[in-house]
């Protein structure tokens, strides 16, 4: 967070905050899921309350908060959002997805982390993809060796790890 030198002029707030409406709807949906899930739990206890008590309480709380958020949204009480760079977000999320895919398919730790490092660096504006990839591979190898040899914690091994 960088604190601005001068106070910026307050941006105009929309009358009804559509994103806020979505948030309220999501909360309501989660509450419904909780109620449905809790309904199939059986109480089978002699004293006290059963496992469905807490879910019901939380579900009720969520419904109240969904209404609360709805009111906030209708009043436009949510803070105004500045523009977000979609490319950066897509790069990071894409990198995460690739990393998960590589691990899931047995590609190994080093390759997965190298991909993640490269895409994240690119998301922050670096253009030198090859250099970053090399850095990622080297760093990944060092971390793998440190974890595997020194800390004896196992990391997923793929084709690259079997070279060591």
């Amino acid at each position: 967070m960088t604190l601005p030198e001068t106070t910026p002029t307050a941006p105009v707030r929309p009358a009804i905050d559509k994103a806020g409406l979505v948030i309220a709807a999501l909360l309501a949906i989660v509450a419904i899921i909780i109620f449905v899930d809790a309904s199939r739990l059986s109480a089978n206890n002699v004293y006290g309350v059963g496992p469905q008590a807490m879910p019901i309480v939380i579900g009720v709380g969520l419904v109240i908060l969904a209404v609360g958020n709805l009111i906030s949204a209708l009043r436009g009480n949510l803070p105004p959002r500045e523009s977000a760079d979609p490319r950066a977000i897509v790069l990071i999320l894409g990198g995460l997805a690739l990393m998960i895919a590589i691990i899931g398919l047995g590609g190994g730790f080093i390759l997965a982390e190298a991909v993640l490092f490269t895409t994240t660096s690119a998301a922050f504006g670096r253009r030198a993809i090859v250099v970053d990839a090399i850095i990622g591979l080297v760093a990944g190898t060092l971390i793998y060796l440190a974890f595997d040899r020194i800390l004896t914690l196992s990391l997923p091994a793929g084709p690259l790890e079997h070279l060591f």
Partner: protein
Amino acid sequence: MDTFAALAHGMAVAIQPMNLLFALVGVFLGTAVGVLPGIGPALTVALLLPVTYKLDPAGSLIMFAGIYYGGMYGGSTTAILINTPGESASMATALEGNKMAKAGRGGPALATSAIGSFVAGTIATLGLTFLAPWLVDFAVRFGPEDYFALMCVAFVTVSATFGDSPVRGLTSLFVGLVLGLVGIDKLTGQARLAFGVPELLDGVEVTTLAVGLFAIGEALYVAARRHHTEEKLEAVRGSLWMTRQDWKRSWKPWLRGTLLGFPIGALPAGGAEIPTFLSYSAEKRLTNYPEEFGKGAIEGVAGPEAANNASAAGTLVPLLTLGLPTSATAAMMLAGFQQYGLNPGPLLFAERPDLVWGLIASLFIANGMLLVLNLPLVGLWVRLLAIPQPWLYGGILVFATMGTIAAKPSVVELGMLAAFGVMGFMMRRFDFPIAPVVIGLILGPIAESQLRRALAISLGDPLVLVQSPTSAILLGIALIALIAPFVLKGLNRFKADED
């Protein structure tokens, strides 16, 4: 006195070479992550949990505490030099500190913040030392209904009372509570919210949530708004030494900051931002040099820095004596205790005094180490800030995912990590506080089990929750804390209309 004997015993544990090494690593890491924006003590402890579970518990906990204290020291360096607080608790420091740096007085700003942090940390840790046994005596008499009521107070104050928007704070808390529901119910063995996915039967891992929310969420947020901010690093010009006048102007803010930080840190108020801003306002009102505020007044650095270090020690009071975390970092440390099968509270003081008092004693040592690390070695930290941002965040994400991959390399777990990252990004964008989610996840299941235990003992009678005076008072406080923000906001509206 009993406490002195216990502390001396703890010192004997703390000065063992292995534990000294852990303390050194902890304070070093803590200062580093405090300095670096985008990564903080809570996230660091979360990242280290999977790595340390095979290591000695006493040493690891000493390291985590060192990271906590270190984070408070390190955050001020970035706050003063780049106007970008490395820690949200250092925001107040940035207000005057950066102005001092721009005026060529960065050295004294860093000095007053480091020395003030040391003074505050030492006094506050002494407070912890003497307060803890007293509180433990009191807490030993707590029954499950008292613990439940205490947690309700914590839930409410962390999420609703002190934030911008109680509705958003409570929403965050309830999201955490929902995540706490996932998994097998311990008392009856039935699965809740698992949807047939085997990985979910163990519940949501705290580390997965914390790392997703803090690291990935922060990376997404900063990357998305990169085109808005421009940071300029102020060089540390001139000497690091404070003039006699600087000392004269600093020592009272140090003490006032400590007095503000320690009790507020012990309360479940959601973090160290409140005492630091309170200290800033207090110093602004009490200063003999009001014209300097806004242009670089040293009191505005001395007070808040003392406050945030004192509040870190204050947070440890309820954590160690009651097992109640009052900030995200404390919640991570609680997860650290749980990972070794330890439960902080009166029982731990009785069963493992060497561990608890060793931890407290090593805090004094860590404090001393931090003074040395932060004053003469400040140049080292400044160089750390020269790492280009893309590599910094690339590295952060690699370390973030590394822990989860080592502990549970399943696609489901990693998918959850990414999903929490997206959630963290959305929460930052829409101004939903993040700490309540973590606290909801960790404390929710504990609160539930205390509630069910209380009701089982009372054979289903709900009045047991208000029968003990402690629990009745605490529940009353929780209710007041819950309603107060809404009522005050309603009153504010009436006031505005009258004008």
